[in-house]
């Protein structure tokens, strides 16, 4: 017993590193009062060390802490993405003008950010419903507070209140669903639950088991912000400070998809028949693939159509991220190795292009206070590099070549077509074209509308240019050279038996 615990600790080092970073940030905040940004640098160091430990987990296939969590290539892939996103967001935070006004409390900010990253790392690794619930809540609780961190701003306050109300209700619904599921299957590990469900459910329990799965769909759907559980996203994204919006839109979504995919594929599908729609028949009653497919289609339609009439840039990106959640969900719906790998590839590209878009928006907001589309007039002339980058990020979000966004959409749509989901791909294709309108509108405003009289060119420091390039290069490079990453994604989904 002690031996397994010790071995498990050795495989849980990324999470342990973050706990240490969190503790050191608290201490540093108490001791080093003069050096306020110490927390950010400590967190950055912690993320790099955790990234090193995560890198060594590629290729592993272990079950740790008595089957509470798994360490495998799939988990390592998601953990790398989360750590990468968190690293970028920490760098954003160090430069954020919104957080400058709270310099005396910024240590707390980095501590909460570390807690959030810890929760996200736990989310993608857990294979037990108790740990899944805990990881889910650790992430949520930190993000509620982070959303309201700029507490003098009424919008931030309102956003955090809306977030915690929607969030706590949906997690309460989820834990009720989990309690029913655990009760009727008599197990808490997701593999054991799957075995119990595959063994057949008594017909008088079928209704309640279906209800339980539906309730879990509510909780997880909330976290990935997919229609019809998306109401919180626009308000929270608009109200939260830029760095927090970025981590919610990217990190939180990646972690939620990692958890959702592992949990659903292992618990509610059979891996024996190699995937496809037949795999969803473990829980009879509702056609789960159709239900999730409809949610994905609705997310694409609602997200893209509502984004068309947004004038606030954060709000527009929020609706765009709802639409992207729909595209990503397609990968889970088709339930083939190809589909899941395409989803993971899409997430990796999404990380760079979405963080990039938020970063440029944050730089503009820092320099001019710009948040609405009208403020972007003529920025193409005042800040050429940043405007070109934003254009590339938006083109990638649309899914046009030669960017990574194009390749990602191509893989995803291809996987859906070969699995026979033609109607879903048609909806995805049409909504992609619709999305072109609102992404390009930003570009048009930047380049074809004259800046105000006497507006100076904007100046940005050299380090922001480096960060911008770090985001820009992968976005473009993944459009040309993508096979190693795709191979890695294919290797990662092998844990599901595909």
């Amino acid at each position: 017993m002690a031996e397994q615990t010790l071995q498990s600790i050795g495989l849980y080092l990324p999470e342990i590193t973050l706990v240490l970073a969190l503790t050191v940030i608290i201490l540093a905040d108490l001791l080093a009062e003069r050096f306020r940004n110490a927390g950010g640098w400590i967190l950055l160091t912690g993320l790099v060390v955790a990234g090193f430990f995560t890198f060594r987990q590629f290729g592993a296939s272990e079950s740790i802490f008595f089957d509470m969590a798994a360490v495998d290539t799939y988990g390592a892939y998601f953990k790398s993405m989360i750590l990468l996103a968190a690293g970028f967001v920490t760098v954003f935070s160090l430069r954020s003008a919104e957080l400058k006004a709270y310099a005396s409390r910024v240590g707390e900010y980095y501590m909460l950010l570390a807690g959030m990253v810890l929760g996200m790392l736990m989310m993608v690794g857990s294979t037990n419903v108790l740990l899944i619930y805990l990881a889910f809540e650790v992430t949520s609780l930190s993000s509620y507070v982070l959303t309201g961190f700029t507490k003098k701003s009424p919008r931030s306050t309102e956003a955090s209140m809306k977030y915690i109300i929607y969030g706590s209700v949906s997690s309460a619904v989820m834990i009720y669903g989990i309690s029913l599921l655990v009760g009727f299957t008599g197990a808490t590990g997701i593999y054991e639950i799957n075995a119990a469900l595959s063994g057949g459910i008594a017909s008088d329990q079928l209704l309640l088991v279906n209800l339980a799965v539906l309730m879990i769909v509510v909780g997880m759907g909330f976290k990935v912000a997919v229609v019809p559980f998306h109401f919180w996203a626009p308000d929270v994204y608009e109200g939260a400070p830029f760095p927090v919006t970025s981590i919610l839109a990217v990190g939180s979504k990646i972690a939620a998809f990692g958890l959702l995919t592992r949990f659903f594929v292992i618990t509610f599908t059979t891996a024996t028949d190699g995937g496809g729609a037949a795999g969803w028949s473990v829980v009879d009653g509702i056609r789960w693939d159709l239900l999730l497919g409809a949610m994905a289609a609705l997310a694409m339609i609602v997200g893209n159509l509502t984004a068309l009439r947004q004038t606030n840039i954060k709000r527009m990106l929020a609706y765009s991220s709802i639409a992207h959640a729909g595209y990503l969900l397609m990968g889970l719906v088709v339930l083939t190795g190809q589909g899941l790998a395409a989803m993971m590839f899409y997430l990796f590209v999404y990380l760079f292009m979405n963080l990039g878009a938020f970063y440029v928006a944050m730089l503009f907001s820092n320099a001019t206070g710009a948040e609405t589309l009208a403020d972007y007039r003529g920025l193409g002339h005042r800040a050429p590099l940043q405007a070109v980058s934003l254009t590339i990020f938006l083109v990638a979000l649309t899914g046009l070549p030669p960017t990574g966004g194009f390749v990602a959409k191509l893989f995803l749509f291809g996987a859906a077509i070969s699995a026979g989901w033609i109607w879903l791909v048609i909806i995805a294709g049409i909504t992609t074209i619709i999305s072109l309108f609102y992404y390009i509108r930003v570009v048009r405003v930047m380049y074809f509308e004259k800046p105000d009289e006497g507006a100076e060119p904007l100046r940005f420091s050299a380090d922001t240019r480096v960060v911008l390039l770090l985001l820009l290069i992968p976005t473009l490079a993944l459009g040309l050279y993508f096979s190693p990453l795709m191979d890695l994604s294919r290797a990662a989904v092998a844990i599901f038996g595909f």
Partner: protein
Amino acid sequence: MGILILNSIFQPGLVHFLTVSAILFSLGLMAVLSKRNVIMVLMGVELMLNAANINLLAFSRFTGLGLDGHMIALFVVIMAAAEAAVALAIVLNVYNRFKTINLDEISQLRG
């Protein structure tokens, strides 16, 4: 004697507990959907969490789930406390900003 007979008729079983928890959950959800006061909404959430706890403990008692149910219930209690603490801090901040905790009156973010 009478008490003994009553006991055997009203021996509570799994179904009774699940029914109570379902009622509790529905009441909580109703509070969340109908109340406009943030504190009342949060109380509704607490009811929903406790409904899940009753489920878990009942399953532990009457089925082969064993101590796992107790464990989850314990953690749910802890999480409920943490959530309440965070929520109340946020509500306090909301009151300082808006001088109200009525959900309908706090709506700057729209679109």
